[in-house]
């Protein structure tokens, strides 16, 4: 039995929305970061599903790109998080509000 395309897309959309909600509602930097990863992976899922449904490898290729970028982003992002923590002794996003006029 094959999973229909629509189901995969619903799951993908759901995961994406969870990620969005997490980004907006959570205050811990790590959590927000993980939510962003979740959104990326939701998109990956949609790519893979389309790839399979259309019988084309293009989607999977794109997924590899996204995963590469996500890995790089994780490296840079976590480094920033550590720097922030050292600077402020906090991981609360609202504490980092000096980047303004």
């Amino acid at each position: 039995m094959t999973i229909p395309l629509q189901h995969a897309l619903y799951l993908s959309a759901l995961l994406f929305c969870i990620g969005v909600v997490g980004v907006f509602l959570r205050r811990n930097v790590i959590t927000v970061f993980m939510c962003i990863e979740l959104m990326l992976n939701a998109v990956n899922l949609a790519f893979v599903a389309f790839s399979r449904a259309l019988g084309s490898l293009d989607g999977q290729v794109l997924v590899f790109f996204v995963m590469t970028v996500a890995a790089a982003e994780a490296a840079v992002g976590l480094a920033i998080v550590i720097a922030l923590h050292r600077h402020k002794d906090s991981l609360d996003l609202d504490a980092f509000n000096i980047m303004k006029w």
Partner: protein
Amino acid sequence: MRSVFDVIAQQPALVLPWIILLLPLLGFVVLCLFGDAIKRDEEDDGAGILATTVVLVSFGLAVWVFASLLAQSPANREGLRFVQPYLGFEWIEVGSFAISMSLLVDPLSALMMLVVTGVGGLIHIYSLGYMAHDEDRVRYFSYLNLFTFFMLLLILGGNLPLLFIGWEGVGLCSYLLIGFWFKKKSASDAGKKAFIVNRIGDAGLILGMALAWNAFGTLDTFELAEHAQNLAYEPIAQAGVVTAFCLLLFLGACGKSAQLPLHVWLPDAMEGPTPVSALIHAATMVTAGVYLVARMAPMFRLSEGALLAVAWVGAITALMAATIALVQTDIKRVLAYSTVSQLGYMFLACGIGAFGVGVFHVFTHAFFKALLFLGSGSVIHAMSGEQDMRKMGGLRAKIPVTFWTFVVGTATIAGIPYLAGYFSKDEILLNAVVRERMPLFWIGLFTAVLTAFYMSRLLFMTFFGTFRGGHDAEHHVHESPWTMLGPLVVLAGACFYVGTLPVDSFLGAAVRSPDQHHLEAPDWFTPTVWAAAFAGILGAFFMYVVYSGLPARIYAALRPLARVLEDKYGFDLAYDAFASKVVVDGSAGVLWKQVDASLIDGTVNGAGRFVDGVSRAARTLQTGVVRAYALVILGGAVALLGYLLWMR
């Protein structure tokens, strides 16, 4: 290509005008570079001797060229062009615009060349004595040589741009020499005034050249004359352009030759050393305007309107300057106004079509006015720098050589028969009669009376009566050295001779006079002119020698009139008012405080303030709250998605 030296060796006559022209420049360069080395100690005048030598050598060569020109038959005297072939380059060549490095030697320029180098040489010699005690002699003589070079370039230049370089160059030298004693404020101011007033005229000359290139397609003097002769057969063609061209050139001439209303700089130019006044502001440079008009005579002949303007400006200037000269008390200023007046005479002659006669007066004027200026310099030298005639008097016996040469000069300018000034002035007036320009004749005649009067007044006030300076000054009066008296004697001798030369007919071809008038004087003419000269002299004799109290009484009786004359008809005041009110106040009140401060600064500052304000408003977008940025990104993404889904 033949080398320079081959050409010179084969045809020395081809390079002669160039050598005449470049020798004074060489003198200038040498004096500039090695002047201080030549002037080893305080009493040494090697610089002056060098400067004098180059000019005298130029004079010798000029005589040679002139003689070879005389040897030709009159028909061939139309002009020899000396295009510079030795170095193998044209001067300017841009597309169809080509100007060659060419000199024109025709009777007109040859005559002027003789005057410039001859009278100039005498004035150089005179300067040796006059400037002997000045510590800046090297600078003085280098300027004098530079002036001679530029003046020769002005005269010999075969096309208008070359003439213009000379024209500007002599203006520069005039400025430098008027302000020679630049530590004196009045001298440096006078230099600036001369320079600025001349600029106005020069603008006319530049525009005239542009117009000539546009309309006639050539700037070569020779070709312009040919063109004018062709135009003469079809008078309608280009009539307006020719008139505009002539009037623009005449504007330039007015600036250089101190004609109304640009005459104001010349009296102030007397701040310069007296030999400079004699050389630049009497004998040569100021006559450049007359030279230019005579040079372009074929063009001027085509335009009745331009000739009319030239004649009347000349006549009114002659009369006005002569009246001002009546009340001047500075010996050099009397001569300065006299120069303006005589220049007016020359333009009058040109304006009635007698160009050759105008140049004849330039020629004689160069001698007697140089003589008068150098004589006044000798007087000033004797008076240890005093220029006020009211403090002179009775100098006749103390400085006899100066006195007698001065008498000759005064008699010449007054028009005493059989001296140089009589012939040229007589011919101008006669031409006015023969060509039936009676108003101009009467103005000229009246000016002649005034001329005789104010020059005799100068003579009597300076040399007759009793000494009016202090006792010390009287004790100090001394005759000048022979370097100064020599030129005076030579020039005085020339006054007896140069008037008899047939200059007008010699110039005939150069100024292309179409008809050689046989001037038949009416019976009344000669007695009238004689009477005019003697009336002026006798009037002055009675007023300043016989009844010496009379001038003061007349002055008191005609006080308002005298004030007008002393104010020089208010030209200086008007220009000053114009400069200080309109230019300075207008610049400060309107241009600076209104236009610059409000409009221009307002625009610039306003642009800055506008950007600043918008940025202040816009920067509140940068809240620094990460989630706010995320929200904007989300909003953007949703909006884009919505657009893609529903709007397309």
